């Protein structure tokens, strides 16, 4: 969604606002991730992308020779990615992928 708003508050003042929002969920059949992903179908992932951009600007003219522009803005991006069907170690016969062990055993 995109929205722009301009308002001439007075002869000397103008207010400008901009808003941009997006949500873009994706399903990737062959997620690559630097070439390290699966090269056969069946191991896709869900990826959720969203973003927010908001900007507010006020322009004030001091007579005919001077102008002041003040602006505040905010932008935000989010990307989440998770496998659809993760392969668990137990499902292919691996007993345990991790186990606790004493740390600093060399000390």
């Amino acid at each position, binding site marked *: 969604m995109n929205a722009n708003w301009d308002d001439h508050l007075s002869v000397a003042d103008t207010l400008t606002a901009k808003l941009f929002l997006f949500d873009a969920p994706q399903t990737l059949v062959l*997620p*690559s*991730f*630097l070439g*390290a*992903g*699966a*090269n*056969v179908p*069946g*191991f896709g*992932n869900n990826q959720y992308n969203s973003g927010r951009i908001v900007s507010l600007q006020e322009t004030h003219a*001091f007579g005919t*020779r*001077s*102008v*002041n*522009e*003040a*602006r*505040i*803005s*905010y*932008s*935000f*991006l*989010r*990307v*989440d*990615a*998770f*496998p659809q069907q*993760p*392969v668990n*170690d137990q499902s*292919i*016969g*691996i*007993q*345990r*992928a*991790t*186990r*606790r*062990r004493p*740390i*600093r*055993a*060399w000390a």
Partner: protein
Amino acid sequence: MIQIALAAGGIAFGTAPLIDVVAQGGTSSVSDTFSTQRGKHSLRMGADVRFNLNLYDVGFYTRGLIQFLSFNDFLTGSTYVSLFGNGVGRRTLRSWDYNFFVQDDWKVTPKLTLNFGLRYELDAPPYDTQGRLATFDPGLYQPRMLTAGGVPVGPPIAGYVQAGNVTKQYNDPDIPKVSKYVLKSIDPNNLAPRLGFAYSPASSGQLVVRGGYGIYYSRTSFQYATLGVADPPTYVFGVNVQAPFSNPFFPVPAGNQFPTLVPGIALSGTFLDRNIRTPYVQQGNFGVQYAMHHTLFEAGWVG
């Protein structure tokens, strides 16, 4: 992730090593620019303050990777290389930028205009709110003297440093603390002058000569701090060669045991240089324009 003879055009299936990701980034800024005309001078000045954040939680090889040299090896469960990672993949990074500038376009004569500008940037490096930043400083390196067949055993006595604002949960008491940025300096001397001119020597105005030079700073991205996520002591990659398929992975510590330096694991990685500075470029240009009837000839140089 299972890879079978991948170098020979084989197949890879399973969950990708870098697939579990939650990442957020944002910037908030407040800026002001004032412009005014005073006689032959056109003045502009302004300030810009930005707050940047980068939050993420990633897992590198937390689901493991097993390589087989051939399909026969896969069928018989004869692994080649097994890779497994674990650690603290979460960061909450923050940074602030402070920018100020002033410039003057001075119309000295009708034929000559000079441009002067000066910009200052303080692009503070990113830091983690929990102090989960660490790096390897070669200048502090002291290898452990214990050897097994001439190879040092265990992590080095010194060389790693961690952020000074590290919280108790993520503090490794054996690793010295430095600044919260981990860097040696925030690099505060980023003055960027700009000069330019435009000159039209002929009274006809057909010939114009222009030139300019400037220094332009640009903050580093969060990438250099992000690359260190997969480095010790907050993360480890365990590599086994020809391990049994029933238990192929190196027994890396559980996530709540980090940060730690794990013996038996290569302590290599992509570490940030503690002397990193704010990058900048110097750029200059020179050009000549000549108008003849309805045709404009132009030659320029940019470097």
